[in-house]
């Protein structure tokens, strides 16, 4: 952190710029506030909103299909994270520790699922599972989610490995540790927070994902897909209540995540 250097502020205080930034902050946060306000409104509009009600939230508990979708989202999220931890972590070790030509190409290919528009991942995977006669089910949704959780884990972990350098492992080996012991006692504790952070990030993204899932969903739905289905009947108080719940839960995950993914912005930015 550079506290002394950052006070270099360029002569003027930039009042106009701050005002403009404030407007953009309003642009970013007012829409979210609208959702929250609507979710507590007894009527459908904000004008004439008399009082606050938690009725819509209470109604959610009795919606069995909704609770099922929520459970499905957890199932998919947790599974996608675990699979990604296996594939992504080994991939991270491979790309940082093993010498081979064409690393750049491998990096670019692994990156594809999140630099490409989600629609491309969705339709290619749909065509893939249809060719293999895999019916649309949890498995297909899970495949879609593993396609983007794996790069998240891989890039978070490989960033940490790169920063660590090889010296700790070399020291452990010089002291006679087996490769397994080196991994268990030296490397793993050092990448632990990166793993937790990546897992939380991957889960957050998976929990909200719809663009790819929408292609791969049959009757087995995750929460966002279920919510999307609710939208066909317009914006009901229930839609707002579900949105409000998702919003708060996402914020909770984000705050949890910031504890593990470094304090500096750079690391936070590793993935959308």
């Amino acid at each position, binding site marked *: 952190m550079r506290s002394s*250097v*950052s006070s*270099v*502020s*360029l002569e003027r205080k930039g009042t106009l*710029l*701050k005002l403009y*930034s404030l407007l*953009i*902050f309003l*642009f*970013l946060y007012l*829409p*979210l506030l*609208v*959702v929250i306000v609507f979710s507590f409104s007894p009527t459908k509009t*904000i*004008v004439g909103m008399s009082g606050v009600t938690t009725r819509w939230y209470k109604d959610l508990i009795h919606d069995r299909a909704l609770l099922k979708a929520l459970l499905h989202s957890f199932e998919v999220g947790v599974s996608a994270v675990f699979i990604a931890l296996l*594939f992504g972590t*080994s*991939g991270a*070790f*491979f*790309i940082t520790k*093993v010498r*081979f030509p064409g690393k750049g190409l491998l990096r670019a*290919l*692994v990156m594809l699922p999140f*630099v*490409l*528009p989600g*629609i*491309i991942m969705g*339709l*290619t995977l749909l065509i*893939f599972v249809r060719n293999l006669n895999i019916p649309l089910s949890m498995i297909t949704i899970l495949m879609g989610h*593993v*396609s983007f959780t*794996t790069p998240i884990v891989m*890039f978070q972990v*490989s*960033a940490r490995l790169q920063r660590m350098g090889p010296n700790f492992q070399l020291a452990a080996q010089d002291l006679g540790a087996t490769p397994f012991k080196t991994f268990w006692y030296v490397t793993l504790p050092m990448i632990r927070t990166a793993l937790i952070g990546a897992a939380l990030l991957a889960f957050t*993204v998976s929990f*909200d994902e*719809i663009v790819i899932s929408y*292609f791969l969903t049959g009757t087995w739905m995750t929460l*966002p897909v279920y919510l999307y289905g609710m939208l066909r009947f317009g*914006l009901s108080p229930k839609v707002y209540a579900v*949105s409000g719940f*998702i*919003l708060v839960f*996402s914020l909770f*995950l*984000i705050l949890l995540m*910031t504890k593990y993914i470094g304090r500096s*912005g*750079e690391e936070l*930015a*590793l*993935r959308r």
Partner: protein
Amino acid sequence: MKRRKRKFDEPRSFLKGIPIFVWLIILVIVPLIFTFTMSFYSSAGLVIEKSFTLKNYRLFITDPIYSRILFKSLWLSLAVAILSIGMAYPLAYMVSFKMVRGRNLLFMMCIIPLWVSYLVRIIAWRSILGNRGVINTILMGIGLIKEPLQIFLYNRFAVAITLTYICIPFVFIPVYTALEKIPRNILHAASDLGANEFHTFLNVVLPLSMPGLITGFIFSFIIALGDYIIPLQLGGTQGIMFGNLIWSQFGFAFNWPFGAALGFVLFVISVTILGVTAKFGSTEGGFFE
């Protein structure tokens, strides 16, 4: 451990690479190959005929509807990218240069919207722009209009504003990272040499932040170009985009081979843009590390 200067490590260490290659082949490469193959099939009713034909690509090129929608989408994506930069760049500049305290908090506040559910943010904009939405309610409340206006939702404007909203953090992050990397003593030097803030910005800050700017631009452009949920939810018939054109081939139009061809067109466009700009954009500190 002996360190040899070799191109390849010993074969045993390649075992680590197996899982990621399996992942890559099953979830990325083979699906792309299948899609490419399917784009040369044709659809007859509900059956897909597996004989080679260029019909889909020919249809895409000859029927002006498709290229018109593509060009409309490209324009809209360009507008979205420019709007996002117009909002995110000053914001990043402010947080990076003008804030002494509370920078980390402000930074967090700029990127939190990124992880708040995409669908919830779409719902938010529907409820703002809609018939009984916030804008109409306010306008009616202050007596400017009697009946709710229908001009806000179901058009290109609604799609552009929502896409911009989604894209802002994607521009903010690479720009902010680039700005943070600029050594502050360069700015001192510029002001010692008599440059005012505007000149310093134009001649020093802007060129040095260009890689981040380009990365942000490309990201927002590609996100806008490939989106289909936002035009479906807020676009109506006027706001149809290339993304929902593709989606509809897998939905009610049920022409998977044509959808595969359109998808492949989008794939080629995206990869070309990414490939060409990878040289100019920053790959570090952005989204990939």
